[in-house]
């Protein structure tokens, strides 16, 4: 019954979204207040309806309702409750429902918080947002209905892919979708502004919080996914340049660019038409990401529900929305003339450089991801583009970004001098070089990668500190530090996070120690500074799996550090084995142990890794997200978003 209601409310939401697309748009054209106002009511109603629908699907998973096709295919009655719930979005149909739920959520939030928006802009934003919703409701209802019933319900389900039964991955998709779909808000604002025919500083201020929110969620989502890969896939890799990873990374890069260019629109009324274009393309890449994951066009480790028919449908959505928006852009972009005047050396120019580096690096990732397909179709060459290409072609952009960042962040608006900014950064530079040299001296006969990464990380981090310090005035009045706007703190924290992540990736790559051997029970062996002993191997039974669990004692200088329990699991229902690495997490390093098959001589294959700075990678991501949150909490956003001082009818016709 609840399932039928969920199906019904989904169809209702589809209809409400159609109405929400049409009426506010017409209303805004003719300045009919009632019709424009209708958009807000519809946005909230649509969200309520689709929430109920999603809730009904979650309920079906929680109660293991095996009359639903996707519950049978992705759940099992013995599965822990957390994974029953996360199973809702661990499949194609459910994840699309989550996607459209978030589209509606953002629309409702714009209706709710957008009291300060000019009524016509708001009506158009809600209309465009609803149009995106309509496309995806149609996609769900016509090609991938999550509420499909089976005529004969089986006794039990086929279980969720055991690799996905993990807390890291339970929350990875919702965050990623919040990020992807959050960019739809920037897109809606961009298209609404194009229809409106004008953009001003206030527009930049309204767009920025939405982009910032989307970027924060993307950061968290990507970090969760990479952390999951690190501990779950069994060899401690954290980034594979897989097409699907790239699909989430490209919107992240563009969202970061958009975030920075919107600042220029807001503060200086320049870069307007570029910012609009960026907003359109950023959401375009979100759609491309969806397309890549679901079309089966590219081979990838986590492509799911590959179905050409669905792929064509999404391609259709992509062409209509992005093609339409770009056409509109071509017709209207001339209207967005820039106003601000600034010198060659200024914060504005630095942010232009930031945008160039981020956008081109995104282009490189895109080109590399699509190249195998292009080469096969156009040149009849079947080839691969893998991590070695991306490492070589992408990394230089990040290094350039890291070197330029502290200087650019210190430059004043309008007109500045590089020499002056560089002078105030002299201590940061000297300290970063000294640290790198120290580490260079301490490590013997290894690559320069570690010290170089340390330099870059320290340079960015100290640069952010100097930037904050410079705000305290000449006398170094510390109390000023706490009265700085949230945006300044957010900037410093997020940039520090980037520095930490860069350092960690370089350090981990340079200083990792690996050991592969057949370990005899009871016989200790050394890896790095640690001594490992395989104490015992036993069979264990879990709720829905069998496990071979080893007990490994880790010692350093004769003192025990940790006892680790790496496992090899077998999920009988899904008929899939998995490895569960055992990791001793510490501040400066992780000890990572994986157990393998038993050998003829009674020993066990064991892989041991010492992974320095592993936690710092995700620590940096957390800092970046935290910086975003601090910036989001800035009073100026809330004032702009919630301002009720707008005089009615104060927005002139264009």
């Amino acid at each position, binding site marked *: 019954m609840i399932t039928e209601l969920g199906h019904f409310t989904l169809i209702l939401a589809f209809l409400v979204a159609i109405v929400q697309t049409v009426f506010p748009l017409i209303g805004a054209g003719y300045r009919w207040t009632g019709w424009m106002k209708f958009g807000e009511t519809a946005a909230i109603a649509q969200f309520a309806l689709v929430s109920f629908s999603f809730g009904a699907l979650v309920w079906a998973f929680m109660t293991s309702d095996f009359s639903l096709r996707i519950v049978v295919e992705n759940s099992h009655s013995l599965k822990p409750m957390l994974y029953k719930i996360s199973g809702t979005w661990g499949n194609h149909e459910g994840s699309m429902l989550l996607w459209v739920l978030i589209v509606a959520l953002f629309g409702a939030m714009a209706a709710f918080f957008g009291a*300060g928006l000019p009524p016509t802009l708001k009506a158009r934003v809600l209309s465009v947002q609803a149009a995106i919703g309509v496309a995806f409701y149609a996609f769900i209802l016509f090609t991938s209905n999550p509420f499909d019933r089976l005529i004969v319900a089986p006794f039990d389900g086929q279980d969720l*892919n055991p*690799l996905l039964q993990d807390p890291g991955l339970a929350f990875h998709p919702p965050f990623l979708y919040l990020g992807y779909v959050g960019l739809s808000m920037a897109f809606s604002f961009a298209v609404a502004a194009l229809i409106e025919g*004008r953009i001003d*500083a*206030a527009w930049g201020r309204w767009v920025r919080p939405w982009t910032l929110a989307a970027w924060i969620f993307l950061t968290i989502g990507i970090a969760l996914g990479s952390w999951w890969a690190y501990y779950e*896939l069994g*060899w401690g890799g954290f980034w*594979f340049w897989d097409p699907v990873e790239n699909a989430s990374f490209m919107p992240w890069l563009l969202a970061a660019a958009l975030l920075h260019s919107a600042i220029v629109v807001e503060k200086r009324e320049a870069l307007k038409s570029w910012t609009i274009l960026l907003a359109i393309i950023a959401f375009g890449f979100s759609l491309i990401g969806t397309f890549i994951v679901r079309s089966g066009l590219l*081979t990838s*480790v986590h492509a*799911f*529900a590959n179905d050409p028919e669905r792929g064509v449908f999404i391609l259709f959505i992509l062409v209509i929305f992005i093609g339409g928006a770009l056409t509109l852009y071509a017709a209207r972009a001339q209207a967005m003339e*820039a106003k*601000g*005047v*600034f010198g*060659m050396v200024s914060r504005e120019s630095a942010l*232009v*450089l930031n945008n*160039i580096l981020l*956008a*081109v690096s995104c*282009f490189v990732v895109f*080109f*590399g991801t699509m*190249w195998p397909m292009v*080469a096969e179709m*156009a*040149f009849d*060459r*079947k*080839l*691969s*583009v*893998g*991590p*070695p*290409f991306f490492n070589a*072609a992408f990394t230089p952009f990040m290094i350039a970004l890291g070197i330029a960042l502290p200087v650019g962040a210190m430059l004043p608006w309008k007109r500045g001098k590089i020499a002056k900014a560089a002078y105030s950064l002299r201590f940061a530079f000297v300290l970063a070089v000294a640290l790198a040299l120290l580490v260079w001296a301490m490590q013997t006969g290894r690559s320069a990668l570690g010290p170089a990464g340390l330099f870059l990380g320290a340079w960015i981090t100290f640069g952010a500190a100097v930037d904050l310090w410079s705000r305290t005035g000449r006398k170094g009045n510390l109390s000023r530090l706490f009265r700085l706007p949230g945006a300044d703190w957010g900037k410093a924290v997020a940039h520090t996070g980037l520095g930490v992540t860069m350092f960690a990736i370089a350090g981990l790559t340079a200083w990792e120690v690996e050991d*592969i051997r*057949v370990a005899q029970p009871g016989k200790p062996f050394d890896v790095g500074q640690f001594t490992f002993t395989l104490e015992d191997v036993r069979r264990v039974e879990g709720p829905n799996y069998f496990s071979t669990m080893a007990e490994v004692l880790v010692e350093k200088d004769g003192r025990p550090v940790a006892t680790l329990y790496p496992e*090899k699991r077998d999920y009988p229902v*899904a*008929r*899939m*084995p*998995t*490895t569960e690495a055992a990791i001793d997490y510490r501040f400066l390093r992780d000890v990572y142990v994986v157990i*393998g098959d038993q050998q003829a001589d009674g020993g066990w*294959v064991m*892989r041991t890794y010492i992974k320095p700075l592993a936690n710092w990678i995700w620590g940096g991501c957390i800092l970046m997200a935290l910086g975003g949150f601090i910036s989001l909490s800035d*009073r100026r956003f809330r*004032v*702009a978003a919630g*301002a009720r*001082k707008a005089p009615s009818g*104060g*927005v*002139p016709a264009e």
Partner: protein
Amino acid sequence: MKRLLLILAFLASPVWAVQPDEVLDDPVLEQRARDLSTGLRCLVCRNESIDESNADLARDLRLLLRERLVAGDTDDEAIKFIVDRYGEYVLLRPTSSGANLVLWLAGPIMLLIAAGLGWNFVRKRSNAQQSTGGEALTDTEKERLEQILKD
């Protein structure tokens, strides 16, 4: 769905990658083999190198690669030996020959174009006169904008 499980099974089975019995006695040779195998694709897997993969084919390729190195091949010769037998698809780092040149040059060329456009834009901005000022805004708007910006 079954296809999906099958696909994931390749990825999911415990990742063994290099087995202890494959490791060469000469550490220098072994290191060379490891470095080379991170650049070779496991053909039956999805986007994994033979160094990471546990598929039988990956193991065969690792053994073949080590065999060639022990036989005295240089890195290039060993890679060529494998590419000749398994095709260009096996290379994770695409060659820079023929059409692939486009792939390698796309980034630098795009950077040049973007830098040119950016430079041009910034130069125009720094030469522009502040004449277009607030004319596009009406008085009520200006007032409102100021109110917002002041908050």
